[in-house]
């Protein structure tokens, strides 16, 4: 009974089959890359063939005609601004509710938790109206307000769960030494939350980068030059689909995400599944 552990058994056939199945799963993505290098007639004539020549016209077209570069920069800035606010506000609130005998702390925990259940369809119309009354409708600031508030319940939930694993002694020592609660949090607790913070950056960074629906609804048909909103606008403008340009756009907008995913797959999987343990 040495190495007969069943989990160590080699199963080459199963591994081969699953590898092929996995490749089949991502085959549509291969197709998008291959077809982004062809002309439209080529795509229609022989969609599965490799391109005969390296044709980068489609990429040139989407960068000049759709201004994808500018909207990608906007998306990146939006991601950074939203995530920064979510991390700062969310972690502080979670700390206050979980670790300090705060008046109303228990109520606030339930109050924030309820937000996990609210679907976008319920709030989209009143939210638009509210932004309109505040005079900030269809602005990036309004979208930022929405993204931050939309993400806070999950951030607080993830931080609260993780905070339970941190020993209290450090905070108590800091308090004895006269360190105030806000400083105690930033100097002592926050650095210990780093794994959580990484998960939140990945989860919301990807979510906001990939979102087109909420941004499109809240920013209206013409405003909001964000990456996927631009792509969506571009393809809903056309009656006959220019698949060649669409594929080029899809590849460009998915490339940064794919690159990061390949580099740090484990962190990605951890971050993206962190949101599910309710």
């Amino acid at each position, binding site marked *: 009974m040495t190495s*007969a552990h069943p989990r160590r058994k080699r199963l080459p056939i199963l591994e081969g089959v699953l590898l092929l199945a996995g490749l089949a799963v991502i085959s*549509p993505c291969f197709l998008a890359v291959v077809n982004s290098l062809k002309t439209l007639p080529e795509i229609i004539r022989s969609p599965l063939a490799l391109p005969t020549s390296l044709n980068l016209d489609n990429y040139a077209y989407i960068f000049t005609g759709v201004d994808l570069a500018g909207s990608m920069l906007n998306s990146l800035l939006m991601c950074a601004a939203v995530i920064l606010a979510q991390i700062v506000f969310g972690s502080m609130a979670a700390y206050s509710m979980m670790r300090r005998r705060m008046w109303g702390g228990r109520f606030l925990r339930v109050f924030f938790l309820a937000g996990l259940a*609210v*679907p976008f369809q319920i709030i989209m119309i009143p939210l638009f109206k509210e932004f309109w009354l505040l005079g900030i409708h269809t602005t990036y600031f309004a979208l930022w307000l929405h993204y931050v508030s939309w993400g806070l319940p999950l951030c607080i939930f993830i931080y609260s769960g993780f905070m339970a694993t941190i020993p209290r002694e450090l905070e108590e020592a800091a308090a004895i030494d006269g360190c105030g609660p806000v400083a105690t949090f930033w100097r002592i607790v926050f650095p210990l939350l780093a794994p959580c913070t990484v998960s939140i950056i990945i989860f919301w960074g990807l979510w906001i980068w990939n979102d087109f629906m909420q941004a499109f609804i809240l920013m209206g048909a013409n405003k909001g030059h964000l990456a996927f909103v631009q792509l969506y606008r571009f393809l809903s403008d056309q009656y006959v689909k220019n698949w060649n340009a*669409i594929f080029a756009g899809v590849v460009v907008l998915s490339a940064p995400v794919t690159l990061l995913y390949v580099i740090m*797959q484990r962190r990605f999987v951890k971050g993206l599944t962190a949101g599910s343990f309710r």
Partner: protein
Amino acid sequence: MALDLVRTAAPPRPLPRRPGRTLPAWSASAILCGPAVILYAGFMVLPAILGAYYSLTQWNGWTSTARFIGLENFRELAGDDRFWTAVRFTLFETVLVVAFFTFASLLLAVLLDKVRRLKGLIRGLFFYPFVLSILVSALLFQYLANYREGAVNVLLRWIGLGAWAQDWMGDPDLVPYFIFGLVAWSGLGFFTTLYLANLQTVPAELYEAAEIDGAGPLRVFTRIQFPMLLATITTNSVLALITGINLFGQIVVTTQGAPGYRTVTIGYYIYQLGILNNRQGYASAVSVATFLALVAVACVQVALLRPRTVSL
């Protein structure tokens, strides 16, 4: 106002507290919780409450006042054929999605758990579609399924099965499976990963004991893995339920409810009413009714599944 950790470690006796320079407890709470509470209350809770109120009004979204009409919207909803068609289609998709994400990903996870070589690569391939935007996955599927130039039909004609080529998105009998395929493709890796994470918590001793007792893979699954996974089965089925009921973005990108009203989901119907037809009051009523139904079903689901959970 605060001391560095480095400095606090140095002096031989504890420093005296300096109450004059620390903030009172309530203001510290306000600083820590304030921003989150204000944003969340202002842009999540308030719109949700307003949405509930609008569901009791007749309002086109642009007039400044919404006319209060009580439960009139809900009465109209009960007799609205297009709403019930949307409910039927949404439920059909939800049943498929819940079954697939609960059981197919369970099977895939059990198989992936046995893989030793190229583990990261194989798992990574299955998870990858989840990283992509809904817009990307919907576009890819729309391209694959296109009747004239789509890759699926071209492939079928190429291998001589041209007769099997179908209008995957235009045929009312096939389009529900097209939508299901799209949702299944994007989410499979995610749900499988949740199972895999749980499978890793199964202690090796259980597998060893099973092997000593001469149990085959099937018995290992039914007696060890399945009972240990029940908590995740609950999680996944509830998450799949939410995914199915809220099905919306994929419809906007691909079919927009066509052919006819065949693929109008509840979410898309709300969007049609509220954004395209300016019936905000009625749209709010549909979303409130759906939300309450979803909460009720999810509670029943959790209540039914939770007591069966096994832990060591």
